[in-house]
């Protein structure tokens, strides 16, 4: 057993933990992960940037020590696998520790949430860290230390960062950080996005270690030392290993081919918990865990019905698209949403068909002006008696407020007519002015 104080992993683990803590404090929003196991643990994929870099750097230093000690040239009693394991475990453990601490730190925001922690995510993280440790060790064994140590950092960060820069999506799911794109309450992890990095990282790491264990004689002097026949055989096996690496990469890309840009998919509607009749409101268990937002939503829809808007018969939490014709509304309800957020979600259900509408090359400004008035009016009506109108108006642009006041100066019947006709006109890409007669 090599003395622990001389292992670089021991000294690198502390800066790694500090970086993870700073990164989590700066960028990971508590609101996005609170009360949701999958969201909390998948966001920890961002910490791979530190845990993998640490594992690769530490393993490269270990590998370069073996190289400078001419380990590959010596006749040793222990097997190559035993030596590699002895060298790699601190790097792997340090990387896994940093990743696990980061994951637990985020997972603490989900304690008490319904469902189970997704155990497959930590497995994927450890597999990815293993691949980076193997890559670093291979670089350390094959290249001079002066090149291997910086290249281990560049290749680790480059692989994780490069995959975000290319428009070929399966590649990003092999690297791992793309898992951080998962999940809202209405979505779940795509299993292929979790298994693709595992299917790539473990075999690729093992193949890299096999290549190191083989120690192929690349240089002329090495080929002369081992003999031409043995050198040729070793090179043939090494070529086979490289070919296997290519096959593993191709198979993993094939596995991730249908995942798309993000690592999530819609949750099955069978998981929805429904209550009420007019409207029937269905939400996911995470959205109901802290307090039931369904009465607030039902009341908001009732107020909008009283204001002359058509009543939705069914309200879903983010599964499918809003369809006022079929009286189905899709609302974006977060976990532990405030009353104001729930009312905003209810009002937005009417304007959802206008989101992302393509009106060609027309001037969008009049359209956006009418859209602003429509949204603000709906939100004010939905929040009557619950949220102070000043609070709602505070979130509206100044120009839109002037138009809104102009509209609200009219009799209530005319306002409702204008809103209904504006909704239809905007769907047809026709802008309406608050001065237009309904």
């Amino acid at each position, binding site marked *: 057993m090599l003395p622990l104080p001389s292992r670089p992993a021991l000294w690198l683990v502390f800066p790694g933990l500090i*970086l993870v803590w*700073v*990164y989590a404090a*700066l*960028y990971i929003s508590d609101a996005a992960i609170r009360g949701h196991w999958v969201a909390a643990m998948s966001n920890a994929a*961002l910490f791979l*940037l*530190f845990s993998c870099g640490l594992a690769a750097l530490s393993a490269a230093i270990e590998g*370069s020590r073996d190289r400078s000690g001419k380990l590959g040239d010596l006749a040793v009693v222990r097997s190559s696998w035993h030596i590699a394991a002895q060298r790699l475990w601190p790097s792997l453990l340090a990387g896994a520790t940093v990743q696990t601490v980061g994951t637990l730190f985020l997972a603490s925001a989900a304690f008490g949430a319904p469902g189970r922690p997704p155990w497959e995510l930590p497995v994927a993280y450890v597999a990815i860290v293993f691949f980076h440790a193997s890559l670093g060790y291979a670089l350390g064994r094959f*290249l*001079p*230390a*002066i*090149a291997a*140590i*910086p*290249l281990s*950092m*560049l290749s680790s*960060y*480059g692989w994780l*960062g*490069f995959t*975000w*820069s290319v428009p070929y999506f399966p590649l990003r799911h092999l690297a791992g950080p793309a898992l951080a794109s998962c999940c809202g309450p209405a979505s779940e992890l795509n299993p292929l996005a979790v298994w693709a990095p595992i299917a790539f990282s473990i075999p690729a790491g093992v193949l890299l270690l096999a290549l190191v264990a083989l120690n192929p004689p690349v240089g002329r002097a090495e080929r002369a030392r081992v003999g031409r026949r043995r050198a040729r055989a070793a090179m043939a096996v090494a070529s086979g290993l490289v070919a296997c690496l290519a096959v593993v990469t191709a198979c993993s890309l094939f596995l991730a081919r249908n995942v798309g840009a993000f690592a999530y998919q819609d949750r099955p509607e069978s998981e929805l918990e429904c209550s009420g009749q007019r409207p029937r409101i269905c939400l996911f268990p995470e959205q109901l865990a802290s307090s039931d937002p369904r009465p607030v939503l039902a009341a908001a829809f009732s107020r909008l019905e009283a204001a002359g808007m058509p009543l939705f018969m069914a309200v879903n939490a983010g599964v499918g698209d809003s369809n006022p014709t079929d009286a189905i509304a899709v609302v974006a309800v977060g976990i532990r949403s405030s009353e104001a957020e729930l009312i905003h979600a209810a009002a937005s259900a009417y304007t959802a068909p206008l989101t992302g509408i393509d009106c060609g090359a027309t001037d969008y400004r009049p359209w956006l002006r009418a859209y602003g008035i429509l949204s603000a009016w709906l939100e004010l009506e939905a929040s009557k008696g619950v949220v102070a109108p000043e609070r709602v108006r505070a979130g509206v642009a100044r120009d839109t407020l002037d138009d809104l006041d102009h509209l609200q100066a009219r009799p209530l019947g005319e306002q409702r007519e204008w809103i209904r006709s504006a909704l239809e006109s905007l769907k047809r890409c026709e802008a309406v002015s608050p001065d237009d007669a309904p």
Partner: protein
Amino acid sequence: MRWWLAAHKALVVLVLVFGTSATALATARLNLALPALSGSMPFAPVPLVAVLATLATVIVAAGLSSGDEAIVRAAARNAHALNAAYLFGAFAVVGLTSAMALPLGVPVEHAWLLLRDTAGCLALLVVGRTLALGRYSATVPTGYLLASSIFGRTSGGLPAWWAWPLQRGEEADLPVLILSAAAAVVLLVECGRRGRAIALGGQR
């Protein structure tokens, strides 16, 4: 001299630096997403040119250190002068590649960006060698690139004045020029010291 060049793998380094520079010029518009702890985004777009200039510097560092250090120290020649010439030669290869790429349609700004980033990285390599970091000397330019990516943004998301690998504009020219000039002075001083030592040894 021929032995010295062969021992320092000059030909291999020359070909690799040429290949890296050509790739950098061909992909100069691309950015690589690296982690960031400053600014407003968890990832900072780092120009690929800066990453490839760092890679070229690592290759040069590997070539420089590939000779037998004990023999080099005991050599009658001024090894520091040879090392300096090696560094300037590598930079000249990058310059030559850039000059060759201009008639092929590569914009002057991209060629200048590559030259500037290579000069900065080679200067940082000199810093690493001067600090006697040995086999860790090439981690200085690599570490600087990663530190720029992680900490080199202002709260507005713009690159900080010192984080020249992130900058594409002229504002980064001055810090790199100062750094390169300082590295050149260090190299010249080292050459002069070694030359004096050899001369004194010869008198004895």
